[in-house]
């Protein structure tokens, strides 16, 4: 009765869905958390990345629709994010400006502007990014579908490695870390603290914008105002959870993406009770890990010394 391609996987569907979900849904988390990681390493917190993400999603979709080239959309999303990051960086360089307050302001600004400018793009369909078919070796349709990987995911993974390596081994990486750990030391060495932080925040904004374009241009792959539903904020929290390590950011993002797929996957195989709890899995996971890893007796290991929350 059932045709081969549509054969049910049964319970194997759950780990497969979590795995597939980790790949599909994690990319925005990866980009936003890597961007935030870079910004925080320089000693600033940019809470506005939720706004940047939404702005990137809208800008990317809009440009892809207008030009017909989704990659131009990705670039535009990055540049929009870069501008927002630059704004945050410059404003925070003024005396007695609190970076967290500016971030909240930019979050509201970014989402508001995106909703305003994005109105005409809710209805039309823009060309979206192609997928790499890494599952072509498998005869199982579900595995092939789970291994439809977007290039941005691959770039995100490489970027995590690159950032990790860069923070340890390159001059630029060391300067960013020094500015983040001790502004006084950086000044003594002759580096402009403000400039490094502005550039780091702008680069972080660029990444978050690209993350947003993934949402609108690949998965779920359309622009509407409920698209982000707080993913940018979760990604910022994820950086603390990952202890400011780009590699751990990557794995944490995978975990969050996978957890988001757990609720629907369990229901699809007939585990029907407690779905509200399973749907809340990413949030529960955050709480559990935060509670388990926090201690009132010490600051978080790995935190940049200049961050206003740890100072």
């Amino acid at each position: 009765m059932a045709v081969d391609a549509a054969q049910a996987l049964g319970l194997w569907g759950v780990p497969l869905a979590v795995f597939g979900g980790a790949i599909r849904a994690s990319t925005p988390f990866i980009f936003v958390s890597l961007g935030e990681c870079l910004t925080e390493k320089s000693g600033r917190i940019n809470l506005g990345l939720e706004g940047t993400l939404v702005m990137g999603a809208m800008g990317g979709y809009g440009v892809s629709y207008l030009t017909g080239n989704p990659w131009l959309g990705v670039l535009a999303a990055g540049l929009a994010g870069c501008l927002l990051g630059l704004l945050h960086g410059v404003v925070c360089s003024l005396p007695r400006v609190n970076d967290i307050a500016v971030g909240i302001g930019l979050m509201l600004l970014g989402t508001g502007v995106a909703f305003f400018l994005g109105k005409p793009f809710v209805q039309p369909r823009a060309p979206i990014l192609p997928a790499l078919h890494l599952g072509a070796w498998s005869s199982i349709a579900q595995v092939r579908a789970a291994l439809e990987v977007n290039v941005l995911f691959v770039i995100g993974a490489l970027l995590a490695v690159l950032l990790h390596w860069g923070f340890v081994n390159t001059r630029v990486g060391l300067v960013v870390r020094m500015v983040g750990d001790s502004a006084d030391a950086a000044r003594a060495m002759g580096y402009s603290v403000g400039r490094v932080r502005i550039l780091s925040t702008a680069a972080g904004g660029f990444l978050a914008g690209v993350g947003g374009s993934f949402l609108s241009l690949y998965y779920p792959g359309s622009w509407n105002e409920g698209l982000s539903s707080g993913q940018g904020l979760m990604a910022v929290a994820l950086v603390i959870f990952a202890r400011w390590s780009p590699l751990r950011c990557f794995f944490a993002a995978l975990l969050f993406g996978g957890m988001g797929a757990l609720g629907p996957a369990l229901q699809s195989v007939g585990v029907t009770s407690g779905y509200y709890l399973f749907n809340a899995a990413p949030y529960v996971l955050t709480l559990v890990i935060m509670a388990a890893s926090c201690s009132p007796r010490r600051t978080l290991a790995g935190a940049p010394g200049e961050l206003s929350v740890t100072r």
Partner: protein
Amino acid sequence: MSKQDVNGDCRASATKPSAVPNTARREIVRALAVAGVGSALGLPFMPTARAEGKLVVGVIYVGPKDDYGYNQAQAQAAAALKKLPGVTVVEEEKVPETMDVQKAMGSMIEQDGASLIFPTSYGYFDPHMLKMAEKYPKVRFAHCGGLWSADKHPKNTGSYFGYIDECQFLNGIAAGHATKSRKIGFIAAKAIPQVLRNINAFTLGAQSVHPDITCQVIFTGDWAMPVKEAEATNSLVDQGVDVVTMHVDSPKVVVETAARRGIYGCGYHANQSALAPKAYLTGAEWNWTTPYTAHVTAAMSGAPMNNFMRGGLKEGYVKTSAYGPAVPDVARKMADGVKGKMMKDDFVIFKGPLKDNTGKVVIPSGTSRVQTDVVLEQMNYLVAGVVGKV
């Protein structure tokens, strides 16, 4: 009475002996707004008086009004109202189901002079709309959903709703013909009666083609969860489901994801065929213009408000999308036949013997629950063949 209102009354009687100081203050504010702001900025839509033969209608949406879904269906009716002579429509989008909606209603009434309000989201009803209805007894409030009852709620409020389960039954017939795996899927937001009724009607429609069809339901937990809806669609496809439909605010994501995974989809709320021309079978659409126009006509002529408005295909409250190319003739013929019977009140979707998916008899043999039966509006079960739990 809320605490806030009580406080307001106390303060009023303590400071000013006059009977209606609140109204007086409001009048002043309004006069100032009209005289100062209106003339200074030259705003054309500032009302100066509620003239005879004119009506200002306020429509409030919970989401964006061009979302290919629930809000778009309401906005299409609001757009139709704008064409009626003497009717001005004021709209507000993305109003959460919180105190915000009371503020939105308040400013529509006070500043725009609205005397008929359509708060279109389920959660606006209690306590927000009821509270405002008490405060403004002369304004009519028409809520979308099945919550109004004559013995509990004020006469200047009411509910309108459509028997869209009729269209979901027809969706089910199209799905029943299209499925090869005999597994169909339903992505639902929350387990409330209207949603359960749709799931059941969709399943029964498909089972009228092949009795052994099962329907896998996934609850996402909220009305707009784009990533979760996409995940749910993917999970269903992975389990061999080859036709999906949904009851979420914006079906766009589900329809598009289903098309990308190569399965069929039936639409909901509005017509989504433009999103997936080949994969779209048919769809259950609202036609709110009918109840909207009736409310406006009554309000303009001063006729008493019709508090309880219901209708299905026959009354023009709901309609179906045109069939997609994947629907075979045999399916079209069968669905059109059932639709014809529904138009003549000659078809009952929920009739006994009917069991739920735990084996309990929910409608005994010999009982027919026709569409107008309010028992159906309290539905709290999933019929046999649905895989899922309320």
